[in-house]
């Protein structure tokens, strides 16, 4: 997830001193593990996260403390991933200020592994971790070519399509979630066809979908090779995934199928509240968002259907820095928090979708029906998408490349009415500026 702003001022850090500081940090860590216990004889483990991971809200920390009376858990939350990550990097280099367990978003995983992977523990060897628990592609995302797994998968973002039954009915489209899914099954282009059908009889003041960038993201994440191929060659200059998703998004924008909004901004929230658009590509974490922004007026109007193609949008991992104060305990905690049973409980409480298929049969998911979304069997829909999602190749500068398309190229067409060719060139220039060495 991403969003707005960061009031922090950039301040250059002292890299020359890094080795010295790291040594000092390690010495300190070594000294502290010797006398790790706090005043009351318990060890305090810190967990650094961005946004709401929900471990506390789901009662997982409390339970872990009950199971391990010698442990106490403290959580440091930073609101946004794009403030959290630079800070985490600087802490890793200096070896200080680190939490024992640190969360990482998938978009930044490659940059982290390439520069700092050696400063993180190989968690495949943590006690209690069974590789087979995770979706193959999720496990692969955090594993480097040497076979070191630096992160344990937490939630994932399999994509469905959330749609408004009331608007579909008035536009003469089917409203049953199975029928809606069949409407566009197999190809995102059929989703646009449905959009054209919607436009013909659209209720006044409404459009088919929220944003072209949302369409782009939903489509592009369904390809295994998106911005780089398996051998690391760049595809962002015009690979098949980028091309197809771009064309789709640009067509949606030019044909007036989008509400010309930008996701995670205020007008987007307001459009939810006003029921301005009929569909939105939605990973599980967006359900809570829709519910909050649409409010009571949207209750029973929204429903969830399968997306045209299985895809995954976002997701996070837990890592343990080697300079953590309590490495062994931290690895045990990370393994426990990401185990299938805990992921299932997190889903029940926070709608974070598990990356462990073993969770999908657990009662928290099997019987999960979301009353706000017309009692949709959300877990079944998302699980099917999760199991079908490809192993996405993650390369350097993922976030910068992604935003060049979603925040520069596509809005230039959608919001500023520029020629798609010029907008494509602008996005390419943007990428070139970001990745140029």
């Amino acid at each position, binding site marked *: 997830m*991403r*969003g*707005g*702003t*960061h*009031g*922090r*001022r*950039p*301040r*250059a*850090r*002292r*890299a*020359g001193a*890094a*080795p010295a500081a790291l040594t000092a940090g390690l010495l300190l860590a070594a000294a502290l593990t010797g006398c790790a216990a706090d005043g009351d004889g318990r060890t305090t483990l810190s967990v650094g996260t961005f946004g709401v991971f929900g471990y506390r809200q789901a009662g997982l920390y409390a339970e872990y403390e009950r199971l391990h009376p010698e442990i106490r858990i403290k959580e440091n939350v930073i609101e946004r991933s*794009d403030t959290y990550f*630079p800070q985490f*990097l*600087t802490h890793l*280099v200096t070896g200080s200020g680190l939490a024992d367990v640190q969360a990482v978003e998938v978009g930044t995983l490659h*940059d*982290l592994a*390439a*520069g*700092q992977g050696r400063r993180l523990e190989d968690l495949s060897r943590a006690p209690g971790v069974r590789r087979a628990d995770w979706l193959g592609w999720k496990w692969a995302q955090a594993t480097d070519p040497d076979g070191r797994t630096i992160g344990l998968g937490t939630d994932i973002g399999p994509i469905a399509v959330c749609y408004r039954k009331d608007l579909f009915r008035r536009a003469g489209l089917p409203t049953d979630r199975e029928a809606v899914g069949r409407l566009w099954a197999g190809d995102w282009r059929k989703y646009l066809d449905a959009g054209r059908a919607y436009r013909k009889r659209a209720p006044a003041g409404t459009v088919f979908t929220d944003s072209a960038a949302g369409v782009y993201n939903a489509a592009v994440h369904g390809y295994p090779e998106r911005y780089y191929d398996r051998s690391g060659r760049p595809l962002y200059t015009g690979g098949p995934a980028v091309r197809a998703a771009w064309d789709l998004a640009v067509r949606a924008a030019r044909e007036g199928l989008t509400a010309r909004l*930008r*996701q*995670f*901004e*205020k*007008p987007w929230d*307001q*459009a939810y509240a*006003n029921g*301005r658009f009929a569909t939105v590509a939605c990973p599980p974490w967006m359900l809570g968002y829709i519910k909050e922004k649409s409010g009571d007026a949207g209750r029973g109007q929204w429903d969830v259907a399968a997306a045209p193609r299985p895809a995954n949008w976002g997701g996070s991992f837990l890592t343990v820095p080697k300079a953590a104060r309590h490495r062994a305990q931290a690895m045990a905690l990370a393994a426990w928090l990401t185990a299938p049973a805990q992921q299932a409980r997190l889903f029940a409480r926070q709608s974070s979708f598990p990356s462990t298929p073993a969770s999908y049969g657990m009662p928290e998911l099997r019987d999960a029906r979301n009353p706000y979304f017309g009692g949709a069997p959300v877990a079944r829909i998302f699980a099917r998408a999760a199991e079908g999602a490809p192993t996405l190749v993650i390369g350097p*500068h993922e*976030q*910068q490349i992604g*935003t060049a398309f979603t*925040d*520069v190229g596509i*809005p*230039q067409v959608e*919001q*500023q009415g*520029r020629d798609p060719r010029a907008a494509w060139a*602008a996005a390419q*220039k943007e990428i070139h*500026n*970001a990745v140029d*060495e």
Partner: protein
Amino acid sequence: MTSAPPTTVEDPGAEPAPGPPRVPPAADRDRRAAWRTRRHRWDVRWSPYAFVAPFFLFFSAFGLFPLLWTGWASLHRLELTDMSRMEWTGARNYLRLLHDEFFWNALGNTFTIGVLSTVPQLLTALCLAHLLHQRLRAATFWRVALLTPYATSVAAATLVFVLLYGRDYGLINWALGLAGIDPVDWQNGTWSSRIAVSSIVVWRWTGYNALIYLAAMQAIPDELYESAALDGASRIRQFRHVTVPSLRPTILFTVVVSTIGATQLFGEPLLFGGAAGQKGGASHQFQTLGLYLYEQGWFGFHLGRASAVAWAMFLILLLVAAVGGLLARRLRADR
């Protein structure tokens, strides 16, 4: 430091009073007196330094050192993702800026937004100060009211402005609609977005500058106005021929300070830009130098390049200060 103190200082409180008078040996007394004198001299000479030292210590730790280190970093390839590696590249980061469209665009935007915000801001401030200088009921209330925008945080103010400038549900477009004008897409338009960002700056700083002008106006001797009035000058002529010339140094000061502020403009456009604020709009139409620096360093993770942008900004500010200094000297010479 040349302020040598008088060297003979008698210290009346130093002589022990109670008990039988005890006369110390003469040599001893001389030595103690000499020591006292010396200590006093040191005190006078070095104490000022001790008092200002904390500032300079903090300044060198948090001001000078980062400045120099940023300069050093700007000569390297330095990535946030791997900060233990610094590769010497010489002037490459600066040469790169010369061909960097995004940098020139940001520089142009900084200038445009700077003019769009500074000029109306200072003109309005001058008029407001002139109004406040008249006899007014509840003068303190008006003065405090002028200062409230300045006391509001950038974040809070900008978020409100974002809502006001909303395309679909914004108050300003609603008002324009009442007047029969089509809604404006404030954020996506080239000029509309710059005007919107400038308006936040104007709103925040006008009152502050007005109070500075007011203070300077109150120092203008009344006789000047009286003689002008005797000559039959109208209020407006008095303003133009008495007030403004007397305020020239103050105006120059506010111009320089506002220019510095405009060069460093960051928070307003960042928040106005929303989720991808560091880009300053889809076409970077309101990306300022501060935003570009932030994007390079903390979004693209290119610390070396960001440092070069920072130093370029610093050099631009030095240039501004130099021009301001020259103008000030000219003004003084004119008098």
